[in-house]
């Protein structure tokens, strides 16, 4: 794969993490009076899901080295510690590579469950490692629902993007 294609892929992943940052800055509790005392409930993982899509769509072109480099740059730009996104990108890349053709026969619902669960696992580890005091099951449940709902738009949107720019 061309370097420009890697660059385009990274731009989309970077944009996904930037959207996550932008959404996390939007505090819905300020707009709901009753929600003022409840903990933070929703955390999106759009960037992580976009990376998952690229590995799922082009497993033969994105290997461990690409996952490692993408994870390193994302760690440097957005992470709290170098190695976290590297570790999860490599891990999810390995799982997708192993089961990529099994995933191809999955239904959209099964894909939603799988990638939603993966995103929640990623969030759970993130909160457990970096923000253990903010960890809550409500956060994981709501985030699972949101990230699962976000998978299909990401999937179709990125597929359209890939067919347009990465022929």
């Amino acid at each position: 794969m061309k370097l420009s294609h890697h660059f385009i892929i990274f731009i989309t992943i970077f944009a996904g993490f930037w959207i996550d940052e932008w959404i996390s800055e939007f505090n819905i509790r300020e707009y709901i009076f009753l929600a003022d005392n409840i903990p933070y409930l929703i955390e999106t993982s759009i960037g992580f899901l976009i990376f998952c899509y690229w590995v799922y769509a082009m497993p033969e072109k994105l290997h461990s080295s690409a996952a490692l480099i993408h994870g390193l740059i994302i760690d440097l730009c957005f992470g709290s510690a170098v190695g976290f996104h590297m570790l999860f990108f490599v891990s999810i890349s390995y799982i997708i590579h192993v089961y990529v053709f099994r995933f191809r026969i999955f239904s959209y619902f099964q894909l939603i469950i799988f990638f939603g669960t993966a995103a929640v696992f990623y969030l759970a580890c993130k909160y457990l490692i970096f923000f253990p005091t903010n960890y809550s099951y409500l956060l994981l449940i709501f985030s699972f629902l949101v990230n699962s709902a976000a998978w299909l738009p990401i999937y179709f949107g990125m597929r359209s993007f890939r067919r347009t720019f990465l022929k």
Partner: protein
Amino acid sequence: MARTTPTFTPVGKYALAIILSFFLLISDINYQVFSSARGFVQATGIYGLLIIDSVTSNITKFNVIHKDKQKLMKINKDLKNQLSILRNIVFLEKKSQVLASDLINLQGEILTLSQAKETFIFEIASFGLKNYLCCSSHTLYLQNPQKLKVSANLPVANGNSFIGQTSSLDINLIKVILFSDIEHILPVKINNFFCNAKGAGKPLRITCTVIKSPEFLKIRNNDPVFTSGLGGVFPRNISIGRVININNSVSNESKITIALDASPLESNYFGVLINL
């Protein structure tokens, strides 16, 4: 079946990548090994955003200033146009006033110039140089090939000033009597003093014999001498020379010697104002 589909998944590389990532993560969490690099990258991003924000705000500010400037320029242009219109109006009013004044003056001049005059140029025919240098009769003759009817007592000039006046017309030759001729009398004005200057019989000299008066006492050497216009031949206030000598005798009479500016020897052509 799908699981057995051949895919290239090098476990060793992934294992190595996972171990490396884990090692980096532990070292960074426990020892902050990459905190400076991470901080540098994130600070660079923040500066980038600040620069973009600054550029955006500057562009917005520039647009606002540009719009304000355009408004000011439009107002300035309108004011300039109004000022130009006002200036034109004032100028035209002033000019109309001046024109009215000029018309009034012109009416006066027309009345004065009811007898139209025109200048003709004549070439010298003869000059009595001997008499001019030695004697009291100072005359010259001008050619008149066009046979113009030139009457007596018309002013004659040599281009610088008047030198004399016509005396007679002799067989198409115009006789001119010079100021310095002893028979010529020219009314002159020195400051506010008036006198009739007679020809001294010497080149470029005329004299006034006068009775002492308070105005006479104010006359000094080198005072300019002008025609007074009282003789009816020459126009007034034409410079003809200056005072070179004031002879204060014991008696009441004094003689003022005047040096003329225009020499008849300096030119071969002379102009004459002829009544048409």
